[in-house]
Structures are given as C-alpha cells and as structure tokens.
C-alpha cells in the first residue's frame, strides 16, 4: 500500500480519536447532551473497513456512530454541530449523537435500538439487487446485537436471498456492563451465528487497521462479485466507558484489563509500524496532528456558531408532502387530527 494511503488511514483514525476526545470535553461542558457513546479504541475498525468502499456503497451503524460517520467522510463541522443540537448539524439537530445520518455519503445512520438497524441494511442490499446494481452495504453492529432476534432474522433473509451485505461485528467484549461470555452462548465464536444461516464468516484483529482493511476488501470483492452476504468479526476494545454516563471501568472490568488493551492502541500500532518501516517520520505525525487539531478546532467553532433550530423545525419533517401521482389531500387541513394540526398544537401549546 502506498505511503499516502497509509498516512491517510492514520489521519482518519487520529481525526476520530481527537474528535471523540473533544466530544467528551463538550459533553462535560453541557454542550452535548443525551447519551453519547465514544469510539475511542475502535478507530481501526471503522477506518479500515470504510476505506475499502465506493462512494455509492451504503453504510449503516448503531448508536456508537461518530467514528463510522467521520470515516465515511462526513464533515466534522456538521457532525459536531449535530452533537450540539444545532441547525447546522447533519440532521438539523434533530438526530443527535445516536442518529447521525448523511445521505449524500450514503451514511444511512445511526440507530439506537440494538439490532434494529440490521434489517434496514438488508433492505438497502435488497434494493441494490432489485435494481441490478453492484453496490455493497456495510453494516456495523456490536457483539451485543448478535443474539438478538433482529440479527438472526436478518442473517437468514440475507443468506436466503443472496443480499450484498457485509455484516461487520465489532466485538469489543462488552455490551454495556455485560461481557460477551454472559450474553452469547457460543461466545468463543460469535460468527457461528452467521454460518448457522449458511453465511461465510471470518475474524480479524480489529486493532490493526491494515488487517481490517485487507479482510474487508477481500470480503467486499467477494460480496460484490458473488452477490452474497459475508460476516466479519473484528476483535476490538472500547477504552472508555459504555457512554459518557459510564466510568471507564465499572464493576464489570478491571483497570488493568483496560490498561492492557491500551497497549494495542490502533493508532500506536500503525504509528510504530510506519516508523519502523520508515514510511513516515515524527515530522509527518506532528504535521498530521496539527492538521487534525485544526479540523477539530474549526468543527467546534462551527458548531458553536451554528444557530439552535427554530421552533418551526419542531413540526417539520414528520411527514413529507412529496408524492408521485395525483394529489390527494396532503395539504394541511384545518382540524386534521394527527397531521401536526390543531390537536397537536392544542396539545403542545395552549393560548
């Protein structure tokens, strides 16, 4: 792989790392609210996987989605603005941390019901096949989603109909405070859940961005050409708590376990390797660090400057009046109950 690409991968991972660190600060300052799940420690998975995709491929993620969204190339400014709940955000501030969506980049979100987004990814793949296209759908999910009914129903449908989906399991060993050993009966090999449905599966070191990239590009080629799903388990680890509300190591894991894992920090691994292979020197990393710092600074500035959504935004985007064919009463009727009409007004505001 050429040097530029390698540095690009490093830059992407660093961008996510610094973005998340800044997000934590912004959360502490109360500029970000709600549940906020950081991706620190898992950067190699998103960066290695997404780097392989074409612009017209689709990406679906769960609620720990900042990294996937940034790796897909979404503007950090608009991502930070979304976390701030501002109108300049990707979703005009209506989605938030768990629901980042950037349709232009075919980053389809950002979902907060564990396993609930997997059928959607299969649906995007169904549409691709229906149209005779050759796009691939990349679906990220945690190992905690593996035993869910939605996951298994999806795997069976994808296998049955030969849908072009890469099911990418981010096995970071924990679902909130529950270790995989107490969640998945066959925790030693969660990919069995896919092979049980006749889906080919593999496993890769999720801390090694190059290994991830290679495994994913093999899988994606296979999916694109053979039109069938693939399941890839990535072994990774979350360095911080489950969410900002959760300490880095609660009752459920030890400080030493976390420290141990940090020795294989994906950024450290790549940096060491690039230095060893003389593909990059400290100057390069210093420059990258500065470039990234600049991007993050601008992102926060943009988010801070972005106005909060106008009150009128509250009732927008519930329904679309766009339609094909003859018009049929999509206009806002007086006294139309349940179309953001008088009833909900009466409900919400009274004067």
């Amino acid at each position, binding site marked *: 792989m050429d040097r530029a690409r390698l540095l690009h991968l490093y830059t992407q991972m660093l961008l996510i790392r610094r973005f998340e660190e800044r997000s934590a600060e912004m959360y502490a300052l109360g500029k970000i609210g709600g549940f906020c799940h950081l991706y620190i420690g898992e950067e190699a998975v998103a960066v290695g996987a997404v780097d392989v995709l074409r612009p017209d491929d*689709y990406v679906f993620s769960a609620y720990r989605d900042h990294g996937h969204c940034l790796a897909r190339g979404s503007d950090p400014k608009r991502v930070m603005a979304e976390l701030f709940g501002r109108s300049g955000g990707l979703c005009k501030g209506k989605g938030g941390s768990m629901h980042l969506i950037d349709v232009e980049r075919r980053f389809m979100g950002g979902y907060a019901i564990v396993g609930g987004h997997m059928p959607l990814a299969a*649906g995007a793949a169904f549409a691709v096949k*229906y149209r005779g296209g050759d796009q691939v759908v990349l679906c990220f999910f945690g190992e905690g989603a593996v035993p869910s009914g939605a996951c298994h129903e999806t795997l069976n449908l994808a296998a*049955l109909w030969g849908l072009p989906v890469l099911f990418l399991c981010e096995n970071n060993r924990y679902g909130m405070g529950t270790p995989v050993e107490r969640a998945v009966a066959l925790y030693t090999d969660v990919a069995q859940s896919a092979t049980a449905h006749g889906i080919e599966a593999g496993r890769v070191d999720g801390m090694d961005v190059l290994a991830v990239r290679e495994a994913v590009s093999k899988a994606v080629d296979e999916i694109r050409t053979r039109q069938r799903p693939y399941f890839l388990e990535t072994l990774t680890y979350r360095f911080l708590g489950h969410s900002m509300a959760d300490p880095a190591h609660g009752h459920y894991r030890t400080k030493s376990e976390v420290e141990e894992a940090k020795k294989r920090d994906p950024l450290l691994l790549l940096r060491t390797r690039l230095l060893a292979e003389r593909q990059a020197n400290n100057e390069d990393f210093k420059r990258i660090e500065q470039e990234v710092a600049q991007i993050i600074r601008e992102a926060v500035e943009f988010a801070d400057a972005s106005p909060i959504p106008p009150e009128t935004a509250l009732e927008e*985007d519930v329904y679309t009046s*766009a339609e094909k064919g003859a018009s049929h009463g999509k206009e806002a009727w007086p006294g139309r109950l349940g179309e953001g009409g008088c009833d909900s007004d009466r409900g919400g505001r009274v004067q």
Partner: protein
Amino acid sequence: MKATYREALNQALREEMRRDDRIFLIGEDVAYYQGAFKVSKGFLEEFGPRRVVDTPITESGFTGLAIGAAMTGLHPVVEVMTFNFAILAMDQIVNNAAKIRYMSGGQISVPLVIRGPGSSAHQLGAQHSQSLEAWFCHVPGLKVVAPATPYDAKGLLKSAIRDENPIIFIEAQLLYPTQGEIGEGDYTIPLGVAEVKRPGTDVTLIAYSKMLLVALEAAEKLAQEGIQAEVVDPRTLRPLDLTTLAASAKKTGKVVIVEEGWPVAGLGAQIAESLYRTVFDYLDGPIIRVTGRDVPMPYARNLENAAIPEVNQVVAAVHQVLYRN
C-alpha cells in the same frame, strides 16, 4: 363495475405495480400461495418472483428489510398475513419507519405500505382477533387507513401506495368477500378525507372498517322508527378528518361511535375527545361509544358474538343518546 373488496385490493395493487417498477409486494405466502386470503391472486404469474416475494416467518426482519428498501428508493408493499403479527414488527414500524424521516432532518423518506387484515374473523381466538388501530394512530410519522367498502379499498390503497410516507392499511377478513360498485379503471381517494355514507339529521353514527356495515344496518333499522341517522366513515384514521366529523356532530348534536376494538384507550376515545373539544356547546349529551368488550377474544361462538358490537347495541345506543333520562 361490481367487485369484491378482495378484488378491489387486487386491482389497485396490480394497477400500481404495472405503473411503477419500484413497487413490490413482500410477505408470507404472497407469491406461490397467492396470499393467505388470496389478495395477490395472479401476481406471481404477472410480475414474477422479483416483485412478488415470499418471506420466512420473520415479521420483524422482512418489515425492517422493506423499510430499508424504501429508504433507498423502492416502494414496498408489505403484506402482514394478519395485523396480529405486525406486533412482532412494532419496533421496526414505530422506531424506524415512523421516525427516520424526522431523525434525519428530512433527508430520508420511507414510502411504504403495510397492509393486511385486522380485527376479528370467526372464532380465531384471542391471539388472532384484535384491533390495534389505536396503537398505530398514536404514532406521529404514520398514517392509518381502514376502508370499509370495495370502492374505498381500491381508491385508498392507490393513494396509500402513491404516498411517500409509511402507511398502515388495515383490511378485514370478513370484508374480503363483500361486494360493491367500484367503477372503472384508475381513481384515487385522498387520504384524510371522511365520507358521509348515509345522510341524516337526528344522530351521527361514526364507524369505520367492518363496523361501518353494522352502523349502516342500524341506521336502516332506525329509519323504520323514523330516526334519521347520519353515518360517517372517517376511512383514514390518521390523519383524522375532524372537519367532516365535527360538521355532522354539530348538525345532529348527538353522537354514537362504533368500533370493534377494546374500549380502554381505543380510537373512539380520541374521536370523542376531539369532538367534545370542537363542538362541546352543540352536544345535547355525552357521546356514546359502542366498542368491543374489554376482554381477550374468546373462542366460543356465543361469547365471541357477545364480545363484538352488533346492530342492536348500536340501535340501543342511539336510543340512549336520543332519549336521555
């Protein structure tokens, strides 16, 4: 031209699928079996397995899949074999279909129709006999349609399919064989527009789906007593055409709402509350709801009959609103 409710649905879906290749039908036994209730008769032959898709028994999976397909440019029509099974897809319907447009700040729409029979048939027992329209109507982002006649079924299904929002389209097993005039060719009926099915002056009967037939029969009986009941069918349950309902209530000052579902937090409670709020000063007395009984549906025929609203109950309710105290 005359047709059954079943044929009307078949025509609407067939004509729309001919018009637009993005539309496909997906559900259990819709293709080779031609639909559990034969609504998709002949579809596999005409459109082939690409557009008429049999699924495993995984409502959450294939409903979510349809939502994903809708998000990326297709126009799925999901057939749930009955709406009892849609309960298994509730998370996909409520948390994804209904909210994705809003959560994405309007970037994504979900043009999707989920259709199939709701309510009871004959002695299907507790797990196969329930009316859940109130649940769906509760959810912003969804529209809910429940036609009672073949004509409305065809026109409303076409509108639902042409709509870019997620639509819950509730049919009824006992309506499939009912006959009616549906005219010729292509027509649509706007969503959100109620219809006065029988004009009257003395009392307003509000009923939808199967219960419209009960209300009309009651109106017939009442006419023989010289009571002119106006029967209004909302047809679309969300958005609800309050304007038309209120106009009738204002005129008669007396309202009876007939619904098959459970009484507590049923849709009739909302219709009543909306009417009280809008035409309180015109009402001579409280609105009466005739609803299904507040019990799981029993299997025994006599108990099931006692659990579902029937004509004489509606007549009695009208007497009550007409001659209070």
